[in-house]
C-alpha cells in the first residue's frame, strides 16, 4: 500500500464512519441509534467532499447532509408522537 500523509483526513473520516456504523448496529434504542447515525452522516459528508474536490460535489455533499438530517428529524419526531405532540 502506498502511504500518503495527504490522505490522512480521508482515512480519519472513513474510520469514524465505520466506527459509527458498529455503534449503530450494537445500540438497541432507536432514538439513540439516530445520534450515532448523525456521526456517520458527518463522516460520510466529509468523505464525499474529500474524495472529489469539485463545486458540484460540494452541493451534493450539502444536499446529502441536509437530507439525512431531515430524515433523522422525521424519524425522531414520529417516534415522539408526531405533530399532535408538538
Amino acid at each position, binding site marked *: 500500500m502506498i502511504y500518503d500523509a495527504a490522505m*490522512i483526513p480521508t482515512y480519519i473520516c472513513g474510520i469514524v464512519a465505520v466506527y459509527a456504523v458498529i455503534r449503530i448496529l450494537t445500540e438497541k434504542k432507536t*432514538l439513540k441509534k*439516530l445520534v450515532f*447515525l448523525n*456521526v456517520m452522516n*458527518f463522516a460520510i459528508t466529509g468523505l464525499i467532499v474529500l474524495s472529489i474536490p469539485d*463545486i458540484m460535489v460540494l452541493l451534493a455533499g450539502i444536499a446529502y447532509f441536509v437530507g439525512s438530517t431531515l430524515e*433523522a*428529524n422525521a424519524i425522531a419526531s414520529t417516534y*415522539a408522537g408526531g405533530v399532535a405532540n408538538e
Partner: protein
Amino acid sequence: MPGVVLNIIIAALVCWILFITIDIIFRLPEKGGVSGANAIGTTIAADKGSLNGGCMMGNIVCSPDASAGTLLAACGVFVAGIPGGLLAALLVYIGNRICHDPGYAGTTGAFCATFLIAGFGLIGIPADAFIAGMVIAILTIQGVSHPYASRLLTKLWKVRA
C-alpha cells in the same frame, strides 16, 4: 506526517470550541426545537445522562446546527475558498428552514467558521484538516459516551444560563 496530524488535532480543538460556544450562545440546550429533539433528550436523560445536554444532542441530530455549519463551511472552503464557505452558509440556512428550526445557530456557525478556516489557511492549517477535525469533534460529543457528553454539555450550559 507529524505536521498533518498536528494540524488535524489543532483543527479539532478549534472546531470543538467554536461549535459548542455558538450552540450554547444560541440556547440549544434549553429545550428541543422539535418534538423529536425533546424525545432524544429524554431518552439520553433516562439512560444516566442529563436533560439539557441531551436536548442539545437532540437538536444537533434534528437540524443543521453550528457543528453542521462548521463541517459544511470547511467543505466549502476546501473546494472553493471563502465563496464556497458562504455558499455552504446559505444552504445551511435553507436546511434550517426545511427542518422546521426557527434558530440561526447553523447559519452563524457556517459564517463564522468560513472566515476562521480561511484565516487558519493563511497560517498553514489547510481546510481538509478542518473537515477531519470537525468529524473528530462531533465524534467526541455524539459518538463516544452519551451520559458523559450530556453531563459535560449541561455543565457548560449552566455557565451560560
